[in-house]
């Protein structure tokens, strides 16, 4: 008997859409990288951007103090790791987290699966495993594109920092995918799962980005996973192991909650 049949099924069902997402993220990344050579050394453009209203830069996760578009680290951080790609990874993970449990329940598939000799917690954990694999696959595609594509345009961010930032990004996706999984496990509703997880993602993103502008938000920024993964230009400065650990814990909590909540649920039909 081959092991983890639920995970293999979920992964096989997602293969096509995962490939499409990875291709999209790789294409976007390659496009951004292709622009870099024409920006290199253009300090005037950097100056123009520094004069943009601070709230605008903050919304896009750009640190206006230590910002230099011509530098490899600022460029990769600003255009890839601060806003757009994290949001794409979060959306991918939320869609999967909502569909794989609540979506299958909506489609009555879990009635069949759970009438077989499988533990409910095993079902949830195998789904969570696929969530991690999915986020990691996209992360790996992103890392390789920045690394190898970067060589082509002579853009060489420190690889250790790039790897750390990518792991942070993967963990970030798992946090919100985990929230979708947990809400789906508790309610059986795909709409509630994706809606709640998207709301939490937007709220914590705003808390993190606005904390730089709004002083009363600053003491709260620690509750935002974005603060740990994108807070300090991770491409330039690396991600502290402590911060990575914090995001991993934030990812484990909703998954554990999903296990407990699903265990005592009446399955809908």
């Amino acid at each position, binding site marked *: *008997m081959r092991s983890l*049949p639920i995970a293999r*099924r979920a992964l096989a069902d997602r293969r096509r859409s995962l490939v499409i997402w990875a291709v999209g993220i790789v294409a976007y990344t390659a496009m951004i990288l292709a622009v870099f050579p024409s920006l290199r050394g253009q300090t005037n453009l950097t100056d123009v951007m520094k004069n943009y209203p601070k709230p605008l830069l903050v919304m896009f996760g750009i640190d206006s103090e230590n910002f230099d578009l011509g530098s490899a680290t600022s460029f990769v951080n600003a255009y890839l790791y601060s806003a757009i790609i994290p949001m794409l990874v979060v959306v991918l993970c939320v869609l999967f987290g909502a569909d794989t449990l609540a979506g299958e329940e909506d489609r009555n598939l879990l*009635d*069949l699966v*759970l009438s*077989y*000799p499988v533990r409910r917690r095993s079902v949830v954990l195998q789904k969570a495993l696929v969530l991690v694999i999915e986020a990691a696959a996209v992360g790996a595609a992103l890392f390789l594109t920045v690394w190898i594509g970067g060589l082509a345009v002579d853009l060489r961010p420190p690889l250790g920092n790039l790897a750390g930032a990518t792991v942070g990004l993967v963990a970030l996706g798992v946090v919100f995918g985990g929230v979708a999984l947990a809400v789906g496990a508790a309610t059986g509703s795909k709409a509630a799962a994706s809606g709640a997880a998207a709301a939490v993602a937007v709220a914590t993103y705003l808390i993190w980005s606005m904390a730089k502008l709004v002083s009363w938000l600053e003491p709260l920024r620690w509750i935002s996973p974005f603060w740990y993964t994108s807070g300090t230009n991770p491409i330039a400065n690396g991600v502290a192991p402590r911060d990575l650990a914090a995001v991993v814990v934030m990812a484990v909590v909703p998954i554990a909650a999903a296990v407990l909540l699903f265990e005592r649920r009446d399955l809908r*039909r």
Partner: protein
Amino acid sequence: MTAQGGPAVTDAIRTRGLTTSYGANRGIVDLDLDVRSGEVYGFLGPNGAGKTTTIRTLVDLLRASAGTATVLGLDAHRDSVALHRRIGYLAGDLALYERLTGREHLAWLAGLRGEGAMVELNALADRFSAELDRPIRHLSKGNRQKIGLVQAFMHRPELVILDEPTSGLDPLMQEEFLDLVREVVAEGRTVFLSSHSLDEVQHVADRVGIIREGTLAAVESVETLRERAIRQVRIVFCGPAPVDEFASLPGVREVVAEGARLRLAVAGGIDAVVKAAARHDVVDLLSEPADLDEIFLTFYRGGEP
């Protein structure tokens, strides 16, 4: 059936005071169910009576709020994994992974059970002429139902729990299904199946439990139910309907004539009616399925109209 029951091993399913709330008024209340090993038990009730809620509680998809459910000697909730190894289940609204072929799907399901989980796959698939090599999304309702039946029986379970198993099957396949059920119980295994129609189960069930509004209204042998079942018979004669000849026949409860047409309410068998009709020129004869609500009501009228 007896409230105190015999040794647990003789009961395939035994519930006591089983109560499950589900949705607004679709729960079950204080259900005492006894299904003996080796019998076919027909679980009958109108739609919304609580058949599916009962079945889903037995399979641990819903959790009872009170009472106990013991299946094959195991607690339906606490021992669910051990229990699920030994049962087969077919849901009333079967859903399958649409992209897989029937064969891929059945192999995957067998993988959830482990060794020997598809010993009868090929025999069953042949028997139902199940379409195994096309993606399930291209299959008709009947062909999906065949896949569902194969998965419920393919590992030779001791107990098969089936929710409206014949829905979508053509009459030929329904017959094939009933044959299979007879063979399974002949081997000493147990079949528990729900239906909203007595006619569907009367040729195969040993006993029938009637559920209505979440409570078990009656448990009877099929013979007893059949004797009490009232069916509508319509006969069209060549000439004027001979009303008088039918009014006094045994079992006839009601006769209405409109010219050549005769409408009868008949309790029990319609043998006497058919023989009486045969003495005349008959254009058409239609016997409608016994109405479950009617059967139920006759219980409370003591069988009198």
